[in-house]
């Protein structure tokens, strides 16, 4: 069933090929090279950025782990009494690493962990996965293989041969592991540190052996138990440290291991950052920044976030989706050549060809823009290429500026909305971002209600928020915010003044009240009633007025800067909006496609004959559709004879006009053959299977309609 094909000609280089693919895609070949290069460099930039983020986020965790590991074996080093005491109990120091359900992201964490360990603590790190270790024997084999290989790494390659041989020959047992460990440590002792690589000088003389279980939940209990019991017997000879990767909760250790076994472990718990926070950081650093010219449209971002939240919680997959967006955008949009850093824009705009200029003119957002200009300029824009280029450059600059401002104001708005009760505009900035990208946020009901709520904020909250906003705007690169910052600072000073004034008044009021309190209850009630009445009729206090002013000012900022990107001219160049394409590739529904094809072949085959009605299907439909439709009428078992008969009834009716030599054997056989084919196709698709319950019956495997 397998066939290998080897080309006779020499292969070309990979990079050339990839570029070549990109070129063949579009009709205009001029810019594709550049587009591909831009795309690749952008992706590489983003990739390294995400890796950096991941590293930063894991730093805390790794530091903790490293300090734990160095602590755990220091006693073994010094042969202190405490160690011997623990040894008596035969406890293995172990770390439980709670990583969350997004197992697909764990690989990166573990890779980082083992790198850090090898650099800082010990060269002896083994990573074990459940799928490699169905039994204790396999586990030991894997473990020894990894440990002895890393030993080669440290030493020169001279004795590779002997290690290879010994690995195959030595029976994989704990005692051989120990003897290996002893020989290795002795060797390191005798050797001068200069012979080894520089990092190993950081290792202790007898470094611990770290065994990492990547996915503890999927290991068989027996294997884990055996390994722990065996190694605890030898803990005084072999300084072993275990690290368990846990996806669910630390409770699983006790569920997997009986008390007698888990008491052999001295467990310390480490918690990694939750994947949601990870995602927030990624969105913050990748999307809400003006560093990258490429942007995601609202719907696209929604799709990616939904896949994350409802399917896998995997940041890795989110980034994969982001990569796909980039590729799709640069691939399908010829003008994406302009999607570059502002510095390059000018050069690229001026080197645009006539065709590309036409492409610009065809952009819907540009057409809208043209319609708004006066007639003279309209003609210029539509006929004069160089004028168009100038205008394009200006518009692109505008777009960049818009984005810078957008991000700052978005953060400011988020400061306000994230502290409102019930979070009408969402708790996370990504929700707010989506809402703003989708449509004019100030026209939505949620925005209305959040403004209402903001008008009821107390002073201290308001002041801290304003301070935060000032900080955000000060740190942003946008140039337009000087005035805004001034205005906000003015508000702050006003609040300050208000505070002083009110403090004075407060004192006087309270002293007055105290005097009144000395009177009786009746009077108190009366004064309270009066107070209430006065409040109802009273006009707003100074503070309230100021608060209104602040909220209105924020509102005006939002209206000015948080215009959805779709309203901006030339947004098509920077924003990727093909959400359906993305969803189709990442979150496909194969079964729905099958269902549609079987029930409504006209959806795919644009033939008038198939269109006859919506609910059912025409009898001229492809055989498999008819057979499928007929089988839907049956229960658990289907009689093949009945089925065949029904099928031939339908098919004969469809072919009636030309079947004058009615029911000749030839026709009959062909129908029979067609039926057989359709039925075996349904079997291949998994709708039916042969059944032995009754002769000539098949069993339905689906229930209900699909």
């Amino acid at each position, binding site marked *: 069933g397998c066939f290998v094909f080897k080309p006779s000609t020499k292969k070309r280089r990979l990079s050339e090929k990839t570029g070549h693919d990109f070129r063949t895609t579009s009709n205009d070949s001029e810019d594709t090279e550049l587009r591909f290069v831009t795309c690749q460099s952008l992706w590489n930039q983003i990739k390294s950025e995400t890796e950096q983020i991941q590293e930063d986020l894991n730093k805390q965790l790794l530091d903790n782990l490293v300090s734990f590991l160095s602590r755990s074996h220091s006693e073994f080093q010094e042969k202190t009494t405490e160690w011997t005491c623990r040894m008596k109990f035969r406890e293995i120091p172990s770390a439980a690493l709670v990583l969350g359900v997004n197992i697909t992201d764990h690989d990166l964490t573990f890779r980082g962990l083992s790198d850090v360990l090898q650099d800082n603590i010990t060269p002896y790190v083994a990573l074990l996965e459940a799928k490699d270790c169905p039994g204790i024997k396999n586990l030991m084999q894997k473990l020894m293989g990894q440990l002895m290989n890393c030993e080669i790494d440290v030493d020169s390659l001279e004795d590779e041969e002997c290690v290879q041989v010994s690995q195959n020959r030595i029976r994989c047992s704990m005692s051989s592991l120990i003897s290996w460990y002893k020989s290795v440590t002795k060797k390191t002792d005798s050797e001068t540190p200069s012979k080894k690589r520089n990092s190993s000088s950081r290792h202790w003389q007898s470094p611990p052996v770290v065994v990492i279980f990547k996915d503890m939940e999927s290991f068989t209990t027996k294997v884990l138990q055996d390994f722990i019991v065996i190694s605890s017997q030898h803990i005084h000879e072999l300084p072993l440290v275990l690290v368990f990767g846990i996806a669910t909760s630390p409770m699983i250790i006790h569920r997997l291991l009986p008390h007698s076994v888990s008491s052999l472990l001295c467990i310390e718990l480490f918690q990694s950052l939750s994947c949601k926070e990870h995602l927030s950081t990624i969105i913050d650093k990748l999307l809400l920044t003006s560093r990258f010219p490429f942007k995601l449209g609202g719907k696209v971002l929604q799709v990616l976030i939904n896949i994350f939240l409802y399917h896998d919680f995997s940041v890795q997959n989110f980034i994969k989706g982001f990569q796909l967006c980039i590729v799709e955008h640069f691939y399908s949009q010829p003008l994406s050549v302009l999607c570059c850093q502002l510095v390059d824009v000018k050069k690229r705009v001026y080197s645009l060809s006539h065709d590309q200029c036409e492409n610009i003119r065809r952009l819907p957002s540009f057409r809208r823009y043209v319609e708004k200009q006066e007639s003279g300029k309209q003609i210029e824009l539509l006929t004069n290429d160089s004028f168009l280029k100038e205008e394009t450059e200006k518009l692109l600059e505008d777009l960049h500026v818009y984005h810078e401002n957008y991000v700052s104001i978005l953060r400011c708005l988020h400061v306000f909305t994230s502290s409102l009760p019930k979070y009408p505009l969402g708790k996370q900035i990504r929700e707010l971002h989506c809402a703003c990208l989708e449509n004019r946020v100030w026209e939505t009901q949620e925005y209305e209600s959040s403004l209402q709520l903001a008008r009821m904020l107390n002073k201290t909250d308001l002041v801290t928020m304003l301070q935060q906003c000032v900080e955000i705007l000060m740190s942003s690169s946008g140039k337009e915010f000087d005035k805004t910052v001034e205005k906000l600072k003015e508000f702050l000073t006003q609040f300050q003044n208000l505070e002083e004034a009110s403090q004075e008044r407060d004192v006087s009021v309270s002293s007055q009240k105290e005097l009144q309190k000395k009177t009786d209850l009746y009077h108190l009630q009366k004064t309270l009633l009066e107070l209430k009445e006065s409040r109802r009729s009273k006009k707003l206090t100074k503070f309230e007025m100021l608060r209104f002013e602040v909220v209105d000012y924020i509102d005006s900022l939002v209206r000015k800067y948080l215009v959805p990107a779709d309203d901006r001219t030339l947004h098509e160049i920077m924003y990727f909006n093909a959400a359906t394409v993305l969803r189709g590739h990442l979150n496909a529904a194969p079964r729905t496609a099958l269902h549609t094809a079987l029930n409504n072949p006209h959806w795919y085959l644009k033939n008038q004959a198939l269109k006859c009605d919506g609910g*059912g299907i025409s009898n001229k439909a492809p055989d498999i559709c008819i057979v499928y439709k007929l089988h839907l009428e049956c229960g658990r078992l289907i009689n093949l004879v*009945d089925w065949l008969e029904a099928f031939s009834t339908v098919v004969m009716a469809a072919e009636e006009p030309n079947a004058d030599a009615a029911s000749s054997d030839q026709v009959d056989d062909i129908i029979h053959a067609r039926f057989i084919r359709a039925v075996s196709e349904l079997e291949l698709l998994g709708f039916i299977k042969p059944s032995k319950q009754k002769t000539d019956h098949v069993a339905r495997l689906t*229930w209900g309609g699909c």
Partner: protein
Amino acid sequence: MSRPEGTRSSRRSLQVKFVPDEDVLKHIADDAGTKVRKDKAQLSVSVKRFVKKLENISDNEAQEILEEKNYVAALGICAQDPVGNGSNISGGEVYSFQTPKRSSKMAELASELAQTPEQNVAPDHSKCPEKMAKTPQSSKNSRRKKKEFVSTTPYRLRKRLAAPDPYLESESEYSASCSEEEDEEDQKEVSSVLPGQKTPAKTKAASTPPPRSSLAKKIKEQKMGNLVEEYFEAHSSSKVLTSDRTLQKLRKRRLNQQTLHDLLKNAPLAYAAEIRDLNQQHESLFSKWMLQLHLGFNIVLYGLGSKRDLLEKFRTSLLQDSVHLVVNGYFPSITVRSILSSITEEVLDHIGTFRSPLDQLEFITKRFKEDSSLELYVLIHNLDSHMLRGERSQQILAQLSSLPSIYLIASIDHINAPLMWDQAKLSLYNWLWYETTTFNPYVEETSYENSLLVQQSGSLALSSLMHVLHSLTLNARGIFRLLAQHQLEKKDNPSYPGLSFQDFYQKCREAFLVNSDLTLRAQLTEFRDHKLIRTKRGADGVEYLLIPVDDSTLTDFLEKEDEDV
């Protein structure tokens, strides 16, 4: 068409076209009593009414398509359409579960489908005077209503009533009410009248039309509950309620693979032009696939129709200059090991064996990581085939595909194929999904399947039989021959248990093939190791020997043997 907004009690407007005679007979035999006669009379009345409704279909095609889409969107959850239209016949109804009791259901649909083109069969109005009153002209649902009618033939009712099951009773109440929106009192009336007769109530309902949305809602809930119950009802009883006809009674002979193939070759492929258009659309994506493969994604194709030709075209047009591996997953004896071996042996030119597929995978991984100029395209037809769908196979293939210089493009067909992969595997595969519905017949893919309808040629079994036997001694072949001959003599006896060991020993001695009990036993062990014979112990403790091959193959084998000797 007198009442465009009329009630929706239109059940009786469809003619039952096809009821197999034996079914009718069975009925009469099964259900004695007055009910039967009543209902039978009813049946004959209803036969006269015809599919008048069909006229209205085209009016509301758009609406229907919309509902269809709704249904597809709901993905078989059988959700009712939110409009809450009282007749409750949205997409969910059309495809909803049918209880296994109606054996003639399929035939009905078939005749209905056969009828469809001649929609304008003039119905004989004079013959059904009540019809005009009863036919609800809510044209929107006309077609589906007709189907619903099919599902509630008096025929079915009778069966129901015969079984005094409380659930069934409530169910038929539901079916009465779900197709028409009635007053609550009417509904009560239905349930009270129900045990006796159903039709009068319905007629009444038709005359009191006011629809009630609250009722509709109630019905909806009830319906969901029923759906669940129906499922368990259908799967609890082991009784099979289908007709007893078998293919043998059909005068047609069974086709074998070859004639089937020839016949299908002659049959013209329907909608060839449209299918070609469809395929051309997919072919325009080739270069995009190539790009995405190079960027580290792998590609999986899904959708109805064989994707073999498409992938083959992709291969011939774009992969001619590179090393690539084609795996026919549908091949019945394909294994992961053979895939890995062809990589190690033919791509990497490595001679030697591996202890386990995991070792082999490790070797491949190492080689590909060491040598960055190596790259390999892997095309797998039917990644979801029986042989490859196992967890371990998928794990290995996923790991293979995660190598940066191995580019995988695969196709899947089974409806449950995506269930093969968990999150870990999915992230290793790094799929990009492409819908490529081709409508091409699965010619190659199904040719290996042991279809019920196709006569097995048994050529595979025969050749393996020959092969093994040729490596044995002459005496051993003689022993096997004896057994085979004996089995063929008894082929007409369906309860033939096999040849007992003692008799066999006797026969062998007579033919001077063995000299002791022991030598025969040794010989038999050898046969058993090669799976040439099967032994089983009878009730009396005697050992019986049997060749687990069908008779025709055995005959062929003996003929071949005769030629050889």
